[in-house]
């Protein structure tokens, strides 16, 4: 079936359209959402296996041939990311049942989550730079609604800033695409790469590369452009936060990875150096935030920024080893971040507060939750044999081999800070003297814990099964290191 790679986009899209008809019947909405999320996951796993065995899959949308029409391309990297996002969306939907509240469920929560998945999967799959913009907008539109859904005061206030930042970045995206088109005369990413290779490194291309870095950096929250993230992500409820924190920033990072490996690789002395410096500062800023706060949500939110820094550092080194580390670490970070958000969501539900200083002693009553959180925390910090270790090791080794000693050292040190910040949650939340919290008996702790535990399990398997994943990851890295593989598959030469 030649349209296989469309399915992870099509299933959520059709589901979203169907769910619009049933805003009142929440049970049906839940059932349909779960079934469709499982279907999306299954389709993306089949896609991943197909790509692994048969090479890069492409679809020329509307039968328009490659450089002229829009091409959807699924290489191993994008199939991996699509699979991961489908898994995360499934667990977030499961978590939402008992936590998001009926008012939000009635107000089209489930269809909008499906739209978000369409945007994210589309952005990972597309092979056309303007189509990437369109999928960004689908994703952003859904995120605008998700961030404001429920309409509390803080949500309204933060959503306005969030929309404003993203509208400006979308305008910049259009401008950047327009400038790129005027220079190379193509929008197909494979074709762009070929044409840039022909004309060589013009100064204007460096300008455009930096402009794209600004656009993707705003989405992915790298150093000077991360300012909106802590405030805006803090506003929505935990399931939405888990979706945003694990998926949206990674779409930005993926776009940087794709564009900087596929076509903006001619002036590495400038662009990749700049990216490296920004990555290091991003890590430092994230570390400061992660240590400074006593609010569990804030701590994990700043951990997102650290992870983005580590990933962009891996991209900036641009060797096979560091790319492999980046791919490994992206998947790991998406899963573990979502798991951590869901687990601290359970803590917040039980204690009724975000403030660590008011928590304590959860271990006595909820040992399962405590140990799951500890495993997720260790995985995030990168303690072997859990999943964060391999990715970070590869990134650091790649950095050291290229002589980026400062960056590698900071990545290593940041692991300590990450460990400190998550263990701070563990020590203050689960250890210490037990306290009584009003209304804790009414919380469905087990069914809230299960989706997070599912993700932690996935993370453990991913870490322990690194040997099994290795051929797939190295296949994904091949297409990044050798753009010719990607170009040949798209243009079929």
């Amino acid at each position, binding site marked *: 079936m030649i349209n296989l790679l469309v399915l992870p986009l099509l299933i959520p899209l059709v589901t979203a359209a169907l769910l619009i008809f049933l805003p009142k019947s929440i049970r049906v909405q839940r059932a349909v959402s779960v079934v469709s999320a499982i279907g999306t996951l299954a389709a993306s796993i089949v896609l991943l296996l197909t790509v692994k065995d048969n090479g890069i899959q492409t679809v020329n949308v509307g039968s328009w041939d490659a450089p002229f029409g829009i091409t959807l391309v699924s290489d191993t990297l994008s199939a991996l990311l699509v699979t991961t996002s489908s898994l995360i969306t499934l667990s977030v939907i499961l978590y939402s049942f008992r936590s998001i509240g009926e008012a939000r469920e009635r107000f089209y929560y489930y269809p909008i989550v499906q739209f978000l998945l369409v945007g994210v999967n589309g952005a990972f799959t597309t092979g056309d730079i303007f189509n990437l913009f369109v999928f960004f907008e689908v994703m952003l539109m859904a995120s605008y609604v998700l961030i404001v859904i429920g309409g509390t*005061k803080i949500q309204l206030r933060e959503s306005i800033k969030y929309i404003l930042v993203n509208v400006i970045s979308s*305008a910049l995206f259009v401008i950047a695409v327009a400038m790129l088109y005027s220079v190379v005369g193509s929008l197909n990413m494979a074709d762009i790469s070929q044409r840039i290779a022909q004309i060589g490194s013009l100064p204007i291309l460096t300008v455009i590369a930096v402009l794209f870095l600004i656009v993707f950096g705003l989405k992915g929250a790298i150093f000077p452009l991360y300012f909106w993230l802590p405030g805006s992500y803090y506003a929505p409820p935990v399931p939405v936060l888990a979706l945003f924190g694990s998926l949206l920033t990674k779409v930005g990072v993926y776009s940087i990875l794709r564009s900087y490996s596929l076509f903006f690789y001619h002036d590495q002395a400038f662009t990749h150096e700049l990216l490296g410096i920004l990555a290091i500062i991003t890590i430092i800023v994230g570390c400061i935030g992660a240590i400074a706060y006593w609010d569990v949500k804030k701590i994990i939110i700043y951990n997102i920024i650290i992870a983005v820094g580590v990933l962009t550092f891996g991209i900036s080194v641009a060797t096979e080893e560091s790319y492999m580390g980046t791919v490994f670490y992206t998947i790991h970070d998406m899963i573990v971040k979502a798991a951590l958000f869901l687990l601290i969501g359970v803590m917040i539900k039980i204690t009724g507060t975000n403030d660590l200083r008011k928590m304590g002693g959860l271990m006595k009553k909820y040992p399962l939750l405590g140990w799951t959180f500890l495993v997720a925390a260790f995985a995030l910090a990168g303690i072997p044999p859990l999943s964060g270790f391999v990715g970070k090791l590869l990134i650091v080794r790649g950095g050291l081999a290229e002589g980026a000693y400062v960056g590698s050292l900071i990545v290593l040190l940041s692991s300590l800070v990450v460990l400190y910040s998550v263990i701070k949650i563990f020590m203050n939340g689960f250890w210490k003297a037990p306290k009584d919290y009003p209304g804790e008996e009414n919380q469905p702790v087990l069914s809230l814990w299960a989706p997070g535990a599912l993700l932690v399990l996935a993370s453990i398997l991913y870490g322990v099964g690194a040997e099994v994943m290795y051929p797939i990851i190295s296949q994904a890295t091949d297409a990044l290191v050798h753009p010719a593989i990607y170009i040949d598959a798209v243009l079929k030469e």
Partner: protein
Amino acid sequence: MEILMSIVIGALFASSVYLMLSKSLLRIIIGTGLLSHGAHLLIITMGGLKRGAAPLLGEKAASYVDPLPQALILTAIVISFGVTALFLVLAYRAYQELGTDNMDEMRGNEAND
């Protein structure tokens, strides 16, 4: 013609930046509208300005205009229409709920959720 267009685009960007830096929410929204207009004009200028031919390559067309920038603009306009509409609704709701359209009074970090 390109120079004139560049000046117009520059003026649009300048005024949109000015509007977006003001405190009133409505001015900010108008600013984002102007920003996207500028971006759309930029696309059509970047595609090359020509006169006297349709953006189609017919069977016997002697000359034609590059249709791609026009398709891009159409898409971008539709998207910015959607975003602006959503932004307006949201601004109205925020004005009702928070009782202000002044960005200065929307500061703060405290949670109530």
